[in-house]
């Protein structure tokens, strides 16, 4: 379902609605079949910047329009709708399928699994289109995987902006994931004030 903005955006602050990008854990964002590794991080920005293509964009490999984007959040979020800005000349994705709270999905998994929701997409060069979600299924999202199986005829698929609209809760789903444990002791990790400032105790 698409929604058109039929009012100018100066009246109310559209960008505040699309502020879920602040809750994205950018360091752990990954994509499969991207031509330039790491370019996926450039598509998550503020709503005002959505048409700013200077920082780079996400492009799939030549001849292969499939794309898989994994987006973890720093806390559980509720997603109301998603907006995608694609490339011109058939380089926009034609279909989108999403999976919730599943890590390590690759293409064969994505193709065989039942998606939480699917959309047929339209070319959205100015970022005014948004795709609403079935809100009840998107109540506590720790990470979301977006699968774009095909594009509208181009050689590659290009994505310039991905935006999420919704609310962020302060809850965390997986607290254990943030623990770092050491398998081999590393003395530099155990520097205390006494050790480093020439006290009596000495760690070798």
């Amino acid at each position, binding site marked *: 379902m698409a929604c058109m903005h039929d009012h100018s955006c100066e009246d109310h602050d559209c960008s505040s609605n699309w502020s879920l990008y602040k809750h994205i854990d950018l360091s752990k964002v990954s994509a*499969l*079949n991207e031509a330039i*590794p790491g370019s996926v991080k450039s598509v998550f920005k503020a709503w005002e910047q959505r048409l700013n293509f200077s920082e780079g964009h996400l492009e799939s*490999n030549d001849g292969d329009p499939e794309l898989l984007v994994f987006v973890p959040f720093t806390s559980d979020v509720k997603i109301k709708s998603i907006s995608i800005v694609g490339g011109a000349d058939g380089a926009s994705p034609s279909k989108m399928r999403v999976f919730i709270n599943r890590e*390590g999905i690759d*293409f064969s998994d994505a193709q065989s699994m039942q998606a939480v929701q699917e959309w047929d997409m339209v070319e959205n060069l100015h970022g005014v289109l948004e795709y609403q979600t079935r809100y009840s299924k998107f109540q506590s999202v720790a990470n979301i995987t977006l699968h774009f199986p095909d594009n509208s005829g181009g050689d590659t698929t290009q994505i310039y902006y991905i935006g999420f609209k919704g609310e962020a809760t302060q809850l965390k789903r997986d607290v254990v994931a943030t623990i770092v444990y050491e*398998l081999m002791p590393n003395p530099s990790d155990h520097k205390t004030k006494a050790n480093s400032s020439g006290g009596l105790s000495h760690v070798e």
Partner: protein
Amino acid sequence: MVLEATMICVDNSEWMRNGDYAPNRFQAQADAVNLICGAKTQSNPENTVGVLTMAGKGVRVLVTPTSDLGKILACMHGLEVGGEMDLAAGIQVAQLALKHRQNKKQQQRIIVFAGSPIKHDKKLLEMIGRKLKKNSVALDIVDFGEEDDGKPEKLEAVLASVNSNDTSHIVHVPAGPNALSDVLINTPIFTGDGEGGSGFAAAAAAAAAGGVSGFDFGVDPNLDPELALALRVSMEEERARQEAAAKKAAEEAAKEKGGEQQPTLQDTAMTEGPSASAAEANEKKDDLMDDENALLQRALEMSMDDTTSSHDMRDTDMSEAAADDPNLQLALQLSVQEGAKEGNEMSKLLADQSFVSSILSTLPGVDPNDPSVKDLLASMQNQSEKKDEEKGPNEDEKQ
């Protein structure tokens, strides 16, 4: 310290029986596999490595990705060589094995040992490469063994289709004096992707290069200071000992030049001396004493050395003289025999004397206590004593 899950594809086809890599291709490959497993697990303790074979009856996964080095080494042991390698199937099965790794956070990597000719066409291989790239799986290829027409090109094409950001590598190892493992140690396959190599890789490279890495004894003082210290101390002690031994040898060499002849002659003379006195002893006493005497004599001479030089000198003179003149030799022998004879006479006398006294005692009417008989006996005794006394100094002289 990249967190990685690695699948190693081993070529165990018939072409691996060839001996152009010492000891044979398969064994060289097994050594390389062991080294790689060690390096991977050392660089990051959470890394996992798995092994599969591509030839034989078909592609077979021997070990799923595990960090247990023992399992991997055990499975490499006792592998059969035979069949034909199926590279495409091997890579695909490896990809599947990596897909089902336990820790999804690990990067995926496949290492392929391509030793036999490749029967797949380039297009199929490129497609497989693209699929790997799509799923962000890195691929390392070790091109060794058979040098087929088109094999390097095919492998390079695969690498080009897989490579993204230089995470994949290819190494061509021609047959030669260097072991396969040694050649691989210096490649990015072993050292990792530009991270400078782990400590294990660096140490192994140093050992392979003959320990010429700045460490004195091939032992890193940082890793094992006590061992390095012990080695250094023992080396210095050995050097000091060798110097002292060298000095001694030099001194002895100077001495030896002067008195080289004497020790050997003394030895021969000493053996002759005891033999002569041993002969006398034989005549006089029981035979049992002979061996003991001879041994005693030899022992005495050994300890005497230079002290009784006069005696020795005489003996040496005798032996030297004897060596020169056969007449003298005869004379010497006679004198020895005379001594023996005297002994014989002596014994005879003694025997006679005892015999006489026994006869006298048995004779009726002859009382041994009779003074005349006693005087007779005494005179006979005196004669024998005199002869004893004469004999004694002679013996002493001779001794």
